């Protein structure tokens, strides 16, 4: 099953490699990993999407918690949450299909953020499956480049992951 593990980790050099090293050393899957500092400069927030049996997820969370730099951790999949992923997508355009591509992007609430005479760059956020659906809706031949951030998420309600 797919899990989204959200981590508060000391914002120190090498912290990322400790997490990444743990996954490779123990043979766990990483589907995606995002990391950036939080409002507290001394902390980074990391979001890891992984999958595995309940036993494996239990071990992953325990092993992550065991890392000295990890301050706090939650598995977002265990409770109501929202998740979003950012995608930047570059497509080839012609005079004939420009309107059509824009219409599709609008339907998916994407924004065109760069235009040249032969290309669009479309910005889109949403759950990962929405981004997948948008890619599927486009003509594959037209896609020049896709950049995805990997999902990040936050729990619903008053609870939060903080110190």
């Amino acid at each position, binding site marked *: 099953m797919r899990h989204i593990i959200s981590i508060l*980790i*000391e914002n120190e050099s090498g912290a990322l*490699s400790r997490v990444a*090293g743990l996954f490779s050393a123990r043979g766990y899957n990483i589907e995606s990993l995002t990391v950036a500092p939080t409002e507290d400069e001394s902390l980074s927030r990391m979001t890891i999407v992984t999958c595995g049996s309940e*036993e494996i997820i239990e*071990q992953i969370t325990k092993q992550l918690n*065991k890392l*000295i*730099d*990890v301050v706090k951790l939650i598995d977002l999949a265990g409770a109501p949450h929202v998740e979003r992923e950012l995608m930047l997508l570059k497509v080839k355009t012609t005079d004939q299909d420009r309107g059509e591509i824009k219409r599709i992007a609008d339907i998916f609430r994407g924004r065109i953020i760069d235009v040249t005479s032969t290309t669009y760059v479309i910005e889109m956020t949403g759950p990962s499956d929405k981004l997948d659906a948008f890619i599927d809706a486009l003509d594959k031949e037209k896609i020049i480049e896709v950049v995805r951030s990997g999902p990040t998420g936050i729990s619903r309600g008053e609870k939060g992951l903080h110190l």
Partner: protein
Amino acid sequence: MELNGAQIVVQSLIDEGVEYIFGYPGGAVLHLYDAIFQQKELKHILVRHEQGATHAADAYARATGKAGVVLVTSGPGATNAITGIATAYMDSIPMVVISGQVPSPVIGSDAFQEVDMIGISRPCVKHNFLVKDVTKIAETMKKAFHVAMTGRPGPVVIDVPKDITDPRIKVPYKYPRKVTMRSYNPAVLGHKGQIKKAVELLLSAQRPMIYSGGGVILGEASDELTEMTRLLGYPITNTLMGLGAFPATDPQFVGMLGMHGTYEANMGMHESDVLLAVGARFDDRVTGKLAEFCPHARIIHIDVDPASISKTVRVDVPIVGQVKPVLEHMIELIKDSKTKPSKKALEAWWEQIDKWRSIKCLEYDRNSPLIKPQYVIEQLYEVTKGNAYVTSDVGQHQMYAAQYYHFDKPRRWINSGGLGTMGFGLPAAIGVKLAFPDADVACVTGEASIQMCIQELSTALQYKTPVKIVNLNNRYMGMVRQWQEFSYESRYSHSYMDTIPDFVKLAEAYGHVGMYIDKPEDVRPALEEAFAMKDRTVFMDIITDRTENVYPMIESGKGHHDMKLRVALGTPTDRELA
């Protein structure tokens, strides 16, 4: 007080109460060695190879319970230390390793003797630190000892770039008395409800078994474990790492369990209905085939490391906490409980265990004209009256020592259990002897293992650490040969050496006493003579039966009830044992 970085490192160690530091100098640590030269309190032990430094410090920690401390230079000094760091990591031994690093401005430029020690050591340390600021040294040192010693202990590396120890840069020094880390708060007390549940389950058992590991020794909980086990009257088995936590000569002790455990211990595990695991981690050499592990048992597991719980074997009552307070609490509840262990069930269970015991699975041919390695260990046990510190290397001799030297006290059996590091025994013996100069220290080894760190014989002379080396010389890498005999139709691929040094001459060349023993009747007198030479390191080269194997054996992939016994004993049938 104003000190430079190098002095701060040294003074921090002194303020931490460190007695010995095991190390080897080099370019990146020259400032540190200069600071060591200019003081008297901290004693430096110069080894002959950095691996030796780590094993000696590790064994010092195992024998004393204090953290072992190592100092190595950058590059090859650091990489040579890795094997010893990994050895300590696998057995959860508290150790602080200070490695020199090239100066900060050239880190990452492939400078001379540069290696990414933080990166290389990461998978085999509990934590590591790169010191980037001279004002942070003292705090980092305190943190390193704190992390190494608390929770589930382990090795910590501090990588110190050379410019940080520059003697010209002085800063105010104060060693912190305490340190708190918001991201590190290991559990102490176990959950009360869980402990209550565990005691209820334990008291309801019909066929109980206590299985304890190295965590009991690391957690200083031998007395509590012994008290509780005697209070209950239950059988107890120890892992290789847990030997000595419960007295081996006590009738309730059924021997070591696992791959080379006793018949009664493994059968007891297999047939148990309630298993209490204390400070043990269900290692594959202990469990055998997981699908067949303790099929009838409900399992209680006490461990300070939550990640150890339900890692390989799903347990019914997990208790996360330090073993000592948890056992204290359990003893209290057992004493107060109206429920007592069922006398009738326990009698029947002990009767069954005694039947398994009656096989005498550790019996061997005592009439052989060749020296049997088991006999040597039995004689070692008698000559040292069971009081020696015994270090070992890895292989058959390690198993013989574990099986035939009956450890009654914790911290006496010093071996590399998890990583299985050949070369551990001799430097380990030196580390133990430094900690306990008046104690008998024996290194049980083999002619293959001893050659992996034999250079430390020179260290033993320099620091006058008179250890006794019991070299069970069977002219084979015995354990490799045994597996090849059992599983590869006796194709002994590279499990022997065509050239073996004359160990007597070698010992003498290093300034020690060498003995050559090839007759069974000479074993006892040689051991007596060797241990009588209180101030000499003695190398006993004992020529043993080269075909001898370690029994019982659970071959890999098999369950506890599926043991290979010595052929002379036959395979016990269910009828005989029922």
